[in-house]
């Protein structure tokens, strides 16, 4: 009897301990923005648990900050040998520390997944002892999930800079995605805020992964059985607003990394003030959410709309306009491109019109082969005419008869729109 009581008491204490660990290690992991669970295609062919076919991501819940929860995003541990100024888990920060066991992470992942809470696991970690020691445990978790539990859900592992190539290779066999964070957009920023880290150490594993992916893709062309290797590719993250970088620095960096390392995504994480270190924005400062949003818009324009980084940001325009979106901003600087005829123009030219997203572009291209399109039809297809009307002609000619200057268009659009973030800047006193 007593034995049973002792056993029960132990179970309860253990469960409380897992609750506490989860609370600490989810809190510490939340500054990593990526929650993507898409882009992989791991079919459930072994009658096991989980399926990432056909590679669509699912957001299972949304926290009060409006961000999606798709993966169980936790740190293996928040003990860390480094002291990066912008990081909550930095060595000299006085916070509670915890570390999961391999079994605990596996158990949480499986049980959350079975209840349809999550698409899979996003595992990151503070650096405990040394990079290899940390990476080894992370790989163990992914391996156990795949082999012992026949888990086909999504696994995203953080690659720890400085871990050996062998571990990185093994990680790639089990994970759907690997990522190395660039942390800060400029090397000066890194030197100032994370003097123990070097850009070169982060680029090394990215390079390794890129080459492995290319090598195995080539093998796949001639051999039948080549193991999958990070099918959802690699991504990275930069912190925005912790240093003094311009939007141009950030977007040009992203563009370079998309090309050089074939990254699937670059994430932009608005710096959340967590310290009163004089090198950083103070604790009272706002998270630069508007800026972050514009950076994502610019990123989308580069990846899907055929824009290159120089068109969006250059020495004359080093920052994105916060009042209007980057596509509109580009259009107002390049009025000579317009008006564009919806019924005849090339697809990628239509994609450049403000107020027309890729969904509408596809509808327009499909529909205009049947009959020439007019204003009503465009509106019903979802085109934002309040912005688009200055830049297009259709079956019925142009909607705006007057020739407006870009300044006038800008004012009119701002006047009609209700931005989520900004109210129209009116002078404090309007006397006339």
């Amino acid at each position, binding site marked *: 009897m007593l034995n049973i009581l002792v056993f029960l008491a132990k179970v309860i204490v253990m*469960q409380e301990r*897992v*609750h506490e660990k*989860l*609370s*600490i*290690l*989810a*809190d510490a*992991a*939340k*500054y990593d923005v990526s929650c993507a669970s898409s882009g992989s295609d791991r*079919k*459930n062919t072994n*009658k*096991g*648990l*989980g*399926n990432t*076919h056909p590679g669509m991501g*699912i*957001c*299972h*819940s*949304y*926290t*009060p*900050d*409006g*961000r*999606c*929860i798709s993966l*169980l*995003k*936790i740190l293996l541990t928040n003990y860390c040998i480094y002291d990066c100024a912008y990081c909550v888990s930095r060595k000299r920060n006085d916070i509670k520390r915890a570390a999961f066991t391999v079994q605990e992470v596996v158990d*949480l992942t499986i*049980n*959350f997944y*079975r*209840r*349809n*809470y999550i698409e899979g696991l996003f595992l990151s970690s503070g650096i405990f002892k040394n990079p290899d020691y940390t990476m080894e445990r992370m790989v163990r978790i992914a391996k156990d999930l795949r082999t012992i539990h*026949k888990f086909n859900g999504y696994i995203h592992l953080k690659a720890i800079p400085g871990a050996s190539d062998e571990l990185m290779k093994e990680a790639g066999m089990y994970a759907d995605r690997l990522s190395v964070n660039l942390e800060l957009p400029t090397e000066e920023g890194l030197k100032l805020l994370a003097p123990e880290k070097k850009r070169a150490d982060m680029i090394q594993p990215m390079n390794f992964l890129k080459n492995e992916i290319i090598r195995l893709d080539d093998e796949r062309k001639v051999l039948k059985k080549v193991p999958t290797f990070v099918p959802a590719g690699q991504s990275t993250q930069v912190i925005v607003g912790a240093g003094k970088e311009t939007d141009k620095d950030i977007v040009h960096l992203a563009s370079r990394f998309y090309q050089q390392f074939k990254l699937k995504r670059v994430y932009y994480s*608005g710096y*959340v*003030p967590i310290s009163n270190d004089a090198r950083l924005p103070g604790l009272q400062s*706002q*998270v630069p*959410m508007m800026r972050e949003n514009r950076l994502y818009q610019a990123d989308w324009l580069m990846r899907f709309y055929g824009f290159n980084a120089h068109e969006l940001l250059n020495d004359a325009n080093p920052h994105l306009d916060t009042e209007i979106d980057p596509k509109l901003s580009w259009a107002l600087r390049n009025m000579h491109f317009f008006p564009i005829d919806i019924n005849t123009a090339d697809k990628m030219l239509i994609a450049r019109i403000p107020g027309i997203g890729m969904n509408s572009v596809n*509808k327009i291209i*499909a*529909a*205009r082969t*049947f*009959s020439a*399109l007019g204003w009503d*039809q465009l509106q*019903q*297809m979802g085109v934002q005419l309040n912005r688009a009307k200055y830049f297009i002609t259709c079956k019925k000619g142009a909607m705006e008869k007057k020739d407006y200057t870009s300044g006038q268009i800008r004012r009119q659009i701002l006047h009609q729109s209700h931005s*989520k973030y900004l109210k129209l800047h009116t002078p404090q006193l309007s006397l006339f």
Partner: protein
Amino acid sequence: MEIYLYDGSFEGFLTAVFDSYKKQGVIRKENAFVPDMFATTISVQTDLEKADRVWMGLSKKLSADGLHQFFAAFLSEIDVIEDQLLNYARYIFENQLTIEHDFGNAFVLFVAQTARKVHREKHRMEAFVRFQLTKDGIYFSLVAPDYNVLPLIIRHFKERYADQRWMIYDRVRNYGIYYDLEKVDTIWMEMDKQEGIWDPNENDYQALWQTYYKGANIAGRVNRKLQLQHMPKRYWKYLPELR
């Protein structure tokens, strides 16, 4: 005007399309029909052969995607969907070419947009279903979708949870789907009290999930509007993290 009344099933609807095709009739569900003294009603007998002929006819003119959209739009169960689909079907059959992408046409656009709404709801169910483990090892979930989307989510859940028995029950339409490790069946059941039927660890995993949910939030970035936009309030009561 003639009103064709069908039993509410998809096969019934296709039969009604067949019967009413050459006439100027409209199609209505028999249980939702309010008698109209100026109209004659015709009761449609669901006939799989007729239904099949209409479906085969459609499949010659539509892509697999287009066929799926036709079915998805039907599952919306919205008031005017029968009229819209009938007009759409007529437009399809009257044309030599595939008109599936003629979004300048009002019926085509309406069906495409309705199918899109149904798809959004399907996707939401794939996201917001929450299983609770019962004592006898069944993962059970109660849902109340806006549209009749259970037929559309069977494959997703069957492929994903191939190694566990699960049941998803639509409490609005009062039927469910049950996977027994082999196949998925449609089931009906009485909703009794749900106390005492859960696995002893069930509560603890829900509590762990709530802990995780709290930990993942960044207070400095609060944006309730965005949260609501993605996850409207009507889904909340089925989500343990928001109870």
